[in-house]
């Protein structure tokens, strides 16, 4: 065997060993949950949790292992789940892993330990890009994004100390180390940030500016009035359905193209922020894209119909 052939074989062997190649599915992972909903989480279709997941599992494989699925475009996109297909030109299945919309098809998105996968059939006439949702809380803070955990910062405005403590306590209860700090003092593109404050105080933040530009930019179906004194809740068609005044709060998540999501716990005033912080629990946020709070009333956003 010549030197060239041996070198080529050695290179191939090295590539095989180092490049994640091998026979069989490889080692599996644990505790992955799957939720199926429609209408932005308003209707529950199904849910399951797998304690053991085979190796090389992708979001698509896990879905197909659990439900009858039909696909299109070469198997990369879901057409129907459990017989439920999009009944309209601007309705499709979207998926979120740990509350973050994946950048690639389900057939190539790997599943990692502790992931919460959420499939939702919804109207995308207002926007087809909803970069982050809050319905998987305490994800993505616990298990991160694509198997990578990120440092978490809680950025607090000046006059919402109680709300800030509450948010931090909720994260700590989920075993997420986080300490409050002032707005603009530490979060970066590789940091999962929660910004807590009244809308006028936080509206200079990038995430808040995205929300100001509407669902098309942020994926959040709620916007604040000019002075931050009112909170307008939208339906999936980007129409204002309800306007909340003083004491209104909002929990939402969004991201620009280059960074991990930022969560906002905000409101029209301090009372609204406190109400929103009180709603930062897995139970209250469960399967919601965003959550508006009006006193003790919790309103999943976007609002459906004339809610």
């Amino acid at each position, binding site marked *: 065997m010549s030197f060239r052939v041996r070198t080529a074989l050695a290179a191939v062997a090295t590539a095989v060993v180092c490049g994640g190649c091998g026979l069989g599915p490889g080692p599996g992972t644990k505790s992955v949950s799957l939720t199926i909903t429609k209408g932005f989480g308003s209707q529950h279709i199904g849910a399951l949790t797998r304690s053991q997941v*085979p190796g090389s599992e992708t979001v698509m*494989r896990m879905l197909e292992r659990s439900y009858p699925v039909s696909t299109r475009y070469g198997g990369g996109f879901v057409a129907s789940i459990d017989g439920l297909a999009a009944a309209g030109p601007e309705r499709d299945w979207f998926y979120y892993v740990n509350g973050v919309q994946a950048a690639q098809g389900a057939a190539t998105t790997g599943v990692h330990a502790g992931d919460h996968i959420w499939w939702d059939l919804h109207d995308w006439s207002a926007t087809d890009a909803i970069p982050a949702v809050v319905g998987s809380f305490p994800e993505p803070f616990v298990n991160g994004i694509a198997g990578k955990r990120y440092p978490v910062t809680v950025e607090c405005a000046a006059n919402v100390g109680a709300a800030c403590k509450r948010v931090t306590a909720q994260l700590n209860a989920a075993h997420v180390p986080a300490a409050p700090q002032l707005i603009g003092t530490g979060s970066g593109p590789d940091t999962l940030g929660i910004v807590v404050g009244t809308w006028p105080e936080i509206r200079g933040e990038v995430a808040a500016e995205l929300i100001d530009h509407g669902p098309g930019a942020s994926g959040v179906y709620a916007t604040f009035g000019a002075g931050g004194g009112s909170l307008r809740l939208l339906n999936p068609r980007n129409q204002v359905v309800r306007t909340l005044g003083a004491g209104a709060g909002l929990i939402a998540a969004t991201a620009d193209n280059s960074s991990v999501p930022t969560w906002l716990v905000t409101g029209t005033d301090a009372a609204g922020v406190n109400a929103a912080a009180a709603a930062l629990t897995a139970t209250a946020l469960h399967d919601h894209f965003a959550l508006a709070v009006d006193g003790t009333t919790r309103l999943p956003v976007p609002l459906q119909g004339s809610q």
Partner: protein
Amino acid sequence: MIYRRRASPLHSARAGAGCAYCLALAIATLTLSNPIALAAMALGVLGAGVAAGVGRQLGRAALLGLPVVAAIVLINVLVSHDGLTVIARLGDLPILGHTDITLEATVYGAILGLRAVALILCGILYTLAVDPDEVLRLFRRVSFRSALSATLATRMVPILIRDGRRLAEAQRCRPGPPPSRLTLMRVACTGVLDRALDVAAALEVRGYGVARRPPAYRPPYSRHDLEFLVAAVAIIAVAIAGRVTGWASFIAYPSVHAAGWSALGVAVGLVAVAWLPFADRRGLRR
């Protein structure tokens, strides 16, 4: 690989019946996805070829089809992300991205390959066992000039092959390096074009351009004609029944599900129906 008259039931049947029989085999191959049924189709075509005296050519074609099967399997396993059972991980590949080889994609690739080989065999059986001139005669009442052109074109192909061989042999006798294939092809094509001009001139002189629609040619149906026509209908019927009833069902994704015993029944039925016309050896044309 050209048509030669042989003493077989398929060669004795009229071209329309032969066409219908080969077309039915191809339609059944396209209709069915079950591996047992597809294997039966390939076997049926091979058996028909053996019974028609062209088994050796078909066997050679089947062997030549194996690389096609391998290529189809390879492409499918690399391109398809479907399937639940991962049998190998290739990691991140250039262009293809993250690639896992699944059992389902491999099986489906093999099914596609098997179908391709069966279709190739159907085409070769048609080429070897159905008289092309008779086939063209079927169409001459539809379009006389097109049928004439097609007849001449098909006649030219074997001439082109023979010319190429003769030229290659002649050039090998000359000193120096052997000529390239391109040179041979150019010379052979030039010869064929010259010949085509001669043929066109002869046709013009004989007044073929002003010929009128020929009278209908309706010879009586022979026993072999009827047998192959009935076999064609039966093959399509069995294939459609196997698909509609689910007796020959096959699902590759997300996991492989294939009908077993019922598919075997369909397969036996297909093979029997495909071979039955060859059992009658009476009245063969030689």
